[in-house]
């Protein structure tokens, strides 16, 4: 197993938290992992990306230039990174924020109205957990249980009451991804 996951969006969307949850989950499962954030100096609204490599083997380069999974949280990130994904890779779109289409035909694309889904659960801040739930369902890169446990480590003490709604969001993302998985397996 070796996945190179690139998560791209803007500050406040939870892109870095998503990456850190994956890294924490992978560490707890004794996997090799590297997490590298990239962000601008802006207090709000600047780009906020991270690359997470998870592998069964020691990781050479922590810098991802050709991801196997790309998570896109805004239009600009799709423009910037669509071409970087390896053939056969996965692009996960938060279609609440992204209205551009994916031009590539050699990658699998999953669109989730994650912000609306999160609002339906009661808090738009769990948008990233919906996307993350879908990501782990599609890739199996870490177990759902390990990601769930990472919530305790990633959330500040004052927000620990957000754990239950995040768990719901992870499950909702996973459920939405299962439909895609079925469709994809029917295709092949």
């Amino acid at each position, binding site marked *: 197993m070796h996945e190179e996951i690139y998560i791209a969006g803007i500050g406040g969307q939870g892109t870095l938290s998503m990456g*850190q949850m994956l*890294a*924490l989950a992978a*560490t707890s499962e*004794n996997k*090799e*992992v*590297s*997490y*590298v*954030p990239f962000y601008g*100096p802006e207090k709000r609204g600047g780009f906020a990306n991270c690359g997470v490599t998870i592998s069964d083997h020691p990781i*050479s*380069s*922590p*810098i991802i*230039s*050709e991801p196997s999974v790309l998570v896109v949280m805004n239009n600009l990130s799709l423009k910037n990174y669509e071409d970087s994904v390896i053939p056969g890779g996965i692009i996960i779109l938060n279609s609440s924020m992204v209205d551009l289409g994916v031009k590539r035909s050699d990658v699998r694309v999953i669109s989730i109205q994650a912000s609306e889904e999160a609002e339906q659960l009661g808090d738009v801040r769990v948008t990233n957990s919906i996307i993350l739930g879908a990501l782990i369902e599609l890739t199996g890169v870490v177990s759902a249980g390990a990601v769930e446990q990472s919530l305790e480590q990633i959330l500040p003490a004052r927000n620990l009451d957000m754990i239950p709604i995040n768990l719901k969001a992870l499950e909702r993302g996973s459920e939405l991804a299962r439909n895609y998985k079925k469709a994809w397996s029917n295709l092949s």
Partner: protein
Amino acid sequence: MRRFLMKGNDAIGEGAILAGCRHFFGYPITPQSEVAHYLAKRLPEVGGLFMQAESELASINLVFGAACAGARVMTASSSPGVSLMQEGLSFLAGSELPCVLVNIMRGGPGLGNIGPSQGDYFQATRGGGHGDYYTIVLAPNSVQEILDIMKKAFDLSDMYRMPVVVMADGIMGQMMEPVVIDEEKSVEIPPRPWATIGRDYHEDRNEINSLFVVLEEMEEVNLRLLHKYEEIRAKETLCEEYMLNDAEVALVAFGTVSRICRAVVDKAREQGIRAGLIRPITLWPFPYDVISRAAKSAQCLLAVEMNMGQMFEDVEIGAKGRVPVYHYGRLGGMVPLAKDILEELKKVSERGGTGR
């Protein structure tokens, strides 16, 4: 033994604490600020002292004072802040005081930006401040190595009574990787009979000074430093080699870039190009011997850096003109991508030993 996820900057702080460092003086600057943040919390927990000074100048001079008093002491900053510390660093070197200075390099020159860079190579490996001196420069390339190298940095600085620089870039500072910490390991800090802590503690009058107005006396100090540097060159050079034995093209890279280059070597080998990698861990002393050996077996060398070609000059010195030395770099906070390095490697591999 515990395995957990840790950020590079936090590993600098925890590595220092595991090494017995109990004094930190610093001033925040991105992408280094988490070092101060981490130690501000951790040092009081272990009975240490954290002080945010009013500037980098104050920080390095507080380091000077604490080192005089025999403390295991450090500071950390990023490129523009480290420039401000150079006068103090020269005084520390001239006074033969042990301390550790961490530089989490960012884009420059000037105020530059907060992107990762390796643009301070010349500054670090050629002393940095004024006068005839060197500092040992260590360049880790993983969070685990950062954690482990902090202990080595303090030990070397004590052993040779000189400042040691740990140099990494913004990526190393910000990235997270699992680390294993052996908390059982005990630390032995060597005695400091030279420290200026008062006649209650030492019989003779101890003096720490870098002013020698009599020329002959200054030269004597300079010669003592020179002998120390010769000993360090002979004993302390560290370098990692990867797939070097049969390599036609040897990449040379340190820090973050060496991680990318390792992946490039694997990719090149998959495509039938015999590539190898030389990773200097000590940038001063530089592993000229390894470069020299590679210059006998490989057809050419390719230095890859996040600068215009600074370590490149050391690679040329080591190669002694035997084979062409090429350079590939990204500047201004940009990171060289694996596929671009591979392209460059293919180019130079075709040119091989035929020159530029």
